[in-house]
């Protein structure tokens, strides 16, 4: 049996007395698109941020290609994470730069030594035009600033920046949040195309069931920091798991209870 691209064991994280991740075990095989669903505050974003190194977990291991990134040297961690691209929920484009510069930044920052010399800023800007076309935008959009773009265009540019360095792992944090259903479907289509073209392994977290089924071939559900279900994304709407069924069908009654803060 081959080593999973991403293997997580016993991952735990608490903020004060609030346990956000509680002993997560998860394998993501190479080439798989894993969708993680779950309610707000279930720990989905924290899980991604732990893998990305933005949050230090309290316990557990995170292996990428069999190497535990939590115990690796700093330079090794940077090298491993250089192969990860991330699309943030709000795209997180650098508003002090033009669209082309955002993509050129991603291209230059993710460039590794084995790919040859780092492209010049001018060359990277030139290449940015081609990457914009890959996400369905005209290269002339590169001259605009992020604030001049619609939400859907910002997501596309965020995706362009994420794929600029041709990462072999891609993370998507709520990729369709805030978009109308048609634009959401367009973004999902672009994500699937990019993942297939790059041959990447992907993890997406989402509340959007339609999006989850379009993007993913595997799925998992988090509830109160625990992984309560794993299976095929195609089975999401008829998983046989009471929690997943309640969540995917949006029922008020069921095992999932909404916490009200006092």
């Amino acid at each position, binding site marked *: 049996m081959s080593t999973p691209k991403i293997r997580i064991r016993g991952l735990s994280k608490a903020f004060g007395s609030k346990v956000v991740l509680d002993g997560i075990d998860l394998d993501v095989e190479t080439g798989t698109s894993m969708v993680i669903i779950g309610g707000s505050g279930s720990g989905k974003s924290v899980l991604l*941020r732990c893998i*990305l*190194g*933005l949050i230090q977990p309290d316990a557990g291991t995170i292996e990428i290609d069999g190497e535990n990134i939590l115990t690796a040297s700093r330079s090794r961690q*940077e090298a491993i*994470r*250089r192969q*990860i*691209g*991330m699309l*943030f*929920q*709000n795209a*997180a*484009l*650098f*508003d*002090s730069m033009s669209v082309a510069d955002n993509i050129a*930044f*991603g291209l230059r*920052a*993710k460039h590794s030594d084995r790919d040859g010399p780092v492209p010049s800023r001018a060359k990277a800007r030139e290449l940015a035009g081609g990457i914009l076309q890959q996400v369905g935008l005209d290269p002339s959009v590169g001259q605009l600033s992020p604030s001049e773009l619609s939400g859907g265009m910002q997501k596309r540019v965020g995706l362009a*920046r994420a794929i600029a360095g041709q990462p072999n792992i891609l993370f998507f944090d709520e990729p369709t949040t805030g978009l109308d259903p048609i634009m959401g479907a367009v973004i999902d289509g672009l994500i699937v195309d990019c993942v297939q073209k790059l041959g990447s392994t992907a993890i997406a977290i989402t509340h959007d069931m339609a999006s989850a089924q379009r993007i993913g071939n595997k799925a998992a559900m988090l509830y109160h920091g625990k992984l309560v279900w794993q299976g095929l994304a195609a089975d999401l709407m008829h998983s046989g798991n009471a929690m997943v069924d309640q969540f995917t069908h949006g029922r008020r009654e069921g095992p999932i209870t909404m916490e009200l803060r006092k």
Partner: protein
Amino acid sequence: MNAVLDPIAALGRAVLGLVRQSGALAMFALEALSHLVRPPFYWRIFLSTLIETGFFSLPVVALTALFSGAVIALQSYVGFGQYHVQSAIAGIVVLAVTRELGPVLAGLMVAGRVGAAMSAQIGTMRVTDQIDALTTLSTNPMKYLVTPRLLAGTIALPCLVIVADVLGVLGGFTVSVAKLGFSPSTYITATLDSLKTIDVVVGLVKAAVFGFLIALLGCYHGYNSRGGAEGVGSATTAAVVGASILLLLFDYLLTDLFFSQ
């Protein structure tokens, strides 16, 4: 019992908070400085901050210095008239401007203008995930955002203070000659006789320290801001207030260090 202990407990918490904050600020500064000697260095960010701080702050610093020099000359003339020592005005103006008013007023103007802008910009980047995005793009945010700004602030403020010194003396000269009837050559001679190299050098050293502190507080509060627009607003206020207080504190300490006999 509580009436006695509660204020002491509150004082203890405040002191502990201050110590914790000072330690965090010192660690932040050390980490940022450590990136000065570890490549890459982001020259474009450094140069743009240098221009933003040094060049675009010139009008406000120049006006402040010009009028401050003029006001000192006027005030001194009125006050010194009682003792018939108006001839000391040129010396008072040049010493006050080079030793104190140049660096302090320029520092306060830059704290309000540039420190606030740094805090707001970095704070907005924090709450919109742009700083996390930098990390995911294999770019150390401290190295990219903080280190170039600290260096630019440290270099830009002394340059501004040189301009402030010249214009402050010019303000005093203009009022003294045009309004108070001093002879231009007498005034210039008195100015040059009063001025020592150490006065200018200490003023520039102060300016470098103030520039560093303004950039440090702006970056620190922006980098650690939380909670959306309100958090960024609070961080900006804290950056300006904190920089102004530290600037005055260090002004005293440096004056004591260089001039107390």
